[in-house]
């Protein structure tokens, strides 16, 4: 038998399977986010894995810290913390979120920006450290077989499966499973903001409980005082991020002051 014959023999495939293949098509996703999400997730996943290996999975707390600098390049706007109290590894920033978590920020090329202002970036939660999510990991892992929408196999020479989180849009959160560890990527808006002559870096999403008085606007983003920390400001990024979360009247991020 040669290849031609074998190609003919493919007609022996069961009608049931043939029909299944014809019916299964995947829903289209927003192309820019598909691409942006994959690239960003690849970058931050590699960074997160590197970092966690380096730190032997010991989480680091950086709550209420002041960014010592903001690195700005064409592609990035990154807050860097003091290594004495915080942790930094090149472009990686670690912070505590709702307990213990790893946060890594990295930007995307300018042509990935949305509306000329948004540089999407992702918080990364390692399921081994982030207990709040780990309870849900099993169920989600079972789900993603059927909801997989993108995997960048050749990125960084590794197989990286990137999946949607059930009930979330790709613009909000995506996840990846590597070696039994689930990484959650929560999309944030990361940008250097100069407000009243002071540089700030967006670092964290938050509830509006800390939102103080409205104090101005930068690039269409509303700025509020932070009630719990005078070194921070609260930025409403709803103008540039779509969110399905309707519990709040805005999407609030805290931003830390740069020295």
């Amino acid at each position: 038998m040669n290849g031609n014959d074998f190609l003919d023999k493919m007609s022996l495939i069961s009608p049931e399977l043939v029909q299944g293949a014809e019916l299964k098509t995947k829903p289209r996703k927003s192309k820019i986010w598909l691409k942006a999400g994959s690239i960003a997730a690849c970058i931050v996943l590699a960074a997160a894995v590197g970092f966690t290996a380096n730190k032997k999975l010991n989480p680091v707390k950086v709550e209420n810290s002041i960014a010592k600098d903001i690195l700005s390049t064409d592609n990035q706007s990154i807050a860097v913390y003091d290594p004495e109290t915080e942790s930094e590894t090149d472009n990686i920033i670690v912070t505590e979120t709702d307990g213990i978590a790893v946060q890594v920020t990295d930007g995307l090329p300018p042509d990935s920006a949305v509306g000329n202002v948004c540089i999407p970036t992702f918080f990364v939660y390692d399921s081994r450290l982030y207990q709040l999510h780990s309870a849900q990991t099993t169920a989600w892992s079972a789900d993603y077989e059927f909801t997989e929408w993108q995997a960048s196999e050749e990125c960084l020479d590794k197989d990286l499966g990137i999946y949607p989180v059930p009930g979330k849009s790709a613009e909000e959160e995506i996840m990846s499973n590597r070696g039994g560890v689930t990484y959650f990527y929560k999309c944030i808006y990361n940008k250097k903001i100069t407000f009243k002559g002071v540089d700030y870096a967006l670092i964290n999403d938050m509830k509006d409980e800390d939102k103080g008085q409205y104090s101005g606007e930068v690039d269409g983003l509303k700025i509020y005082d932070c009630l719990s920390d005078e070194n921070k400001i609260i930025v409403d990024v709803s103008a540039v991020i779509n969110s399905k979360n309707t519990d709040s009247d805005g999407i609030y991020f805290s931003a830390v002051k740069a020295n």
Partner: protein
Amino acid sequence: MEDGKIVDLYLERNESAIKETAEKYGSKLKKLSNSIVKDLETAKECENDTYLKAWNSIPPNEPKTYFYEYLARITRNLSLNFCRSKNALKRSAYICELSKEMEECLPSVDDTQCKIDDKALSDILNSFLKSLKEEKRNIFIKRYWYLNSVSEISKNMNISESKIKTTLCRTREELKSYLIKEGYTL
């Protein structure tokens, strides 16, 4: 009309069977053929030939529960044969490409008669495909049953072309191993 009733018309040698078939599946069959031959007129010919072949093969066959798949299989084979004909050189090149890929699955390539019968090969193929993850299986079937191009599959499934190629390559290797494991010989 339900598939079972259409097949009954064939069994009764009632010529309205063809009309009913054309009404229900004509456009799908033409589309399938056109995706292989890339020529609408030829696709129409293949569609019509499909009805004739169905008329001649029902009975003895009674594909009541898989009527469309039965017709599609005929259309596929007719379209493939057309592509291999001398007057379809351009499409012939594409089929050659697919055939070469298929050769990678074979434990050994030979022009001699295959020693395995169709029933046994069908069982092996289906059991192999059922063992695959759904996405992998669908990519394989779209490529080698529907003869879709990589870019068509990529658009259809919203997966990158590089991933499709990698997946196909791995699946071919796995099929080859599976055939060896199952004692497939020529």
